[in-house]
């Protein structure tokens, strides 16, 4: 179902979801031509991250992980400097020092990105503690995968967040439903004994909810409630958003297993063949959201096509910007170990 939003806002969500998708598709293609190092893509989770993070305001902080590209786009980061960072160029958000694993843009509310599993959890909780102690009504969002719940950092941090009733939202994107090593039907994620991931939070008295991460409305509602609670001093919330791992994510190196997304599959089922049929029909949140928008009749296919063209163009421009950007100056390697000293 669609979130209870004005048409303009819905279009904005669609636009960012498409940008996020095209961004990764171009990146995977680029990686076919040249060695750009290891990276993780967000395909299949757009329906979670984009509506969820659209509810944040400037000043709210988000702490993400190795699968971060979609999160940055959700909060308005530009494809150009993102690609530039992934390619190690001087024009990247971190001037080439972070790369895909540490892609961060402070101006968009991503102060630092940890790619150590669970590494983002304690700082996210700490930011909530900082806000609370500063008397601010800002919120801190911890963007974590289900694997992070296997880390001790989760347990220690959840306890602190619960004890102090911190304005923290744990948005756990559980994409393990088809992950490597899953014990089908036995556990919800690869190697976690808890039968419900939400139990791991609710045991601390943290308000917890499991939602369908492919359902934009469900995501939007759960996140809106969590943000409201956090802003009003009602404490932390844990949201488990269940998504399905995109078939292209199965190997260690992502590949365009389902091809470049053909948005016309949203309205023309005959384009869907036998391969990955369930993906195109049910599991791709982007196609699903597009279908819903068309069904409700907010706008026509032509508008979707227009949005896609513009989004694709924006992404490609970003990529050319990055490819045309210089590498950093050698001395850059020695800068920013320390912030300049005030003495």
């Amino acid at each position, binding site marked *: 179902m669609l979130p209870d939003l004005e048409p303009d806002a819905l279009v904005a969500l669609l636009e960012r979801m498409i940008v996020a998708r095209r961004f990764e598709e171009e990146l995977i293609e680029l990686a076919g031509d040249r060695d750009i190092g*290891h990276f993780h893509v967000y395909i299949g989770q757009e329906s979670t991250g984009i509506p969820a993070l659209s509810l944040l305001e400037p000043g709210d902080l988000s702490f993400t992980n190795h699968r971060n590209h979609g999160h940055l786009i959700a909060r308005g980061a530009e494809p150009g400097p993102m690609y530039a960072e992934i390619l190690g160029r001087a024009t990247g958000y971190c001037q*080439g020092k972070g*790369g895909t694993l540490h892609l961060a843009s402070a101006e968009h509310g991503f102060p630092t990105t940890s790619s*150590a599993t*669970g590494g983002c959890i304690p700082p996210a909780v700490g930011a909530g503690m900082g806000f609370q102690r500063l008397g601010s009504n800002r919120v801190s969002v911890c963007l974590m995968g289900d694997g992070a719940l*296997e*880390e001790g950092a989760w347990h220690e941090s959840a306890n602190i967040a619960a004890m102090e009733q911190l304005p923290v939202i744990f948005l756990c994107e559980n994409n393990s439903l088809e992950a490597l090593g899953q014990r089908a039907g036995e556990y919800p994620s690869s190697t976690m004994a808890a039968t419900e991931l939400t139990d791991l939070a609710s045991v601390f008295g943290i308000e917890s909810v499991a939602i369908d991460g492919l359902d934009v409305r469900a995501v939007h509602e759960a996140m809106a409630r969590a943000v409201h609670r956090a802003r009003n001093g009602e404490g932390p919330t844990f949201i488990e958003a269940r998504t399905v791992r995109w078939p292209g994510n199965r190997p260690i190196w992502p590949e365009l297993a389902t091809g470049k997304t053909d948005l016309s599959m949203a309205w023309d089922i005959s384009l869907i063949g036998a391969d990955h049929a369930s993906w195109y029909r049910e599991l791709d949140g982007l196609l699903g959201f597009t279908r819903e928008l068309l069904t409700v009749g907010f706008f026509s296919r032509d508008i979707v096509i227009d949005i896609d063209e513009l989004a694709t163009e924006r992404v490609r421009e970003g990529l050319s910007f990055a490819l045309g950007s210089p590498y950093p100056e050698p001395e850059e*390697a020695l800068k920013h170990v320390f912030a300049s000293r005030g003495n």
Partner: protein
Amino acid sequence: MAETVRFIDAISSVLRREMERDDDVLILGEDVSYGGPFGATAGLSQSFGSTRIIDTPISEGAVMGLAVGAALSGHRPVVEVMFADFVTLAMDQLVNHAAKFRYMTDGQLSVPMTIRVQGGVGGSYGSQHSQSLEAWFLHVPGLKVVTPSSVKDAAGLLASAIRDDDPVVYLEHRGLYWTKGLVDLDDAPTPIGSAAVARSGSDVTVVAVSRMVDVALLASQKLALDGIEVEVLDLRSVAPIDWATIDESVRRTRRLVVVHEAVVTGGLGAELVAGVSATAFEALISPAVRVGGPSTPVPASPFLERLYTPDAEDVIAAVLETLSEL
């Protein structure tokens, strides 16, 4: 029978042979039954099953401690740490438990375990997946630390590590995984604590570890064209250090250069230079020189990565520096 194989395959083969040789050898790590991220354990689960090839959750601290507990109980676990940087999550179990049980119990307990740690710069992995942390491990009494540079030693040191009755940190540079070399798995394992003379020379001693051994050899080939004969020592064991071999070489060449990829400050090179300066002070006729990573985190950009990593030119410059001070 000697054959030419890749570094990573030598690791694989030794794991298999040691598991066949000793039923007490277990392998633990994330996704090891699928071969792990670089394929070191590929095919092992088919042969040995999930009772001995054990996939773990992403719980580095618990897994390290669990391996210690299994080792205390007579098993010989081999723990795979996917990236060296993640040892930070298991430091307490490694430093405060694995390394100390023999001593704290005055020899009553043994911790025969191997910690395979993959690390090093390359591939734009960035600050949290590229570190070389041998200096930390060297600083912890009770740990043995080895870091092979050749395929032969990759095999030989791993066999020694697994058979050793103490915790051995086995450091693998991922940049070496696809290099090839000749190895005979039936050869005696490489003893822990012995350096190798990778090239003989009389003018300058260059001590290198891991991937930097190849860099030092390349530099020494170039220098040989100018008539400068460099002796390259492949340290192989970071703890214990083979002081005798270093001392003998330095007393002959009277000059010392140390090369590693890790940060210079507080690094292995500091210990080597400090040690030689104390014991062979009068032999040195020019200051020792350290070549290594700068005091910065590892950057992601491939361009900055190349700047960060010492290359043959850096080693040549250091060698020439030791020769210029006469």
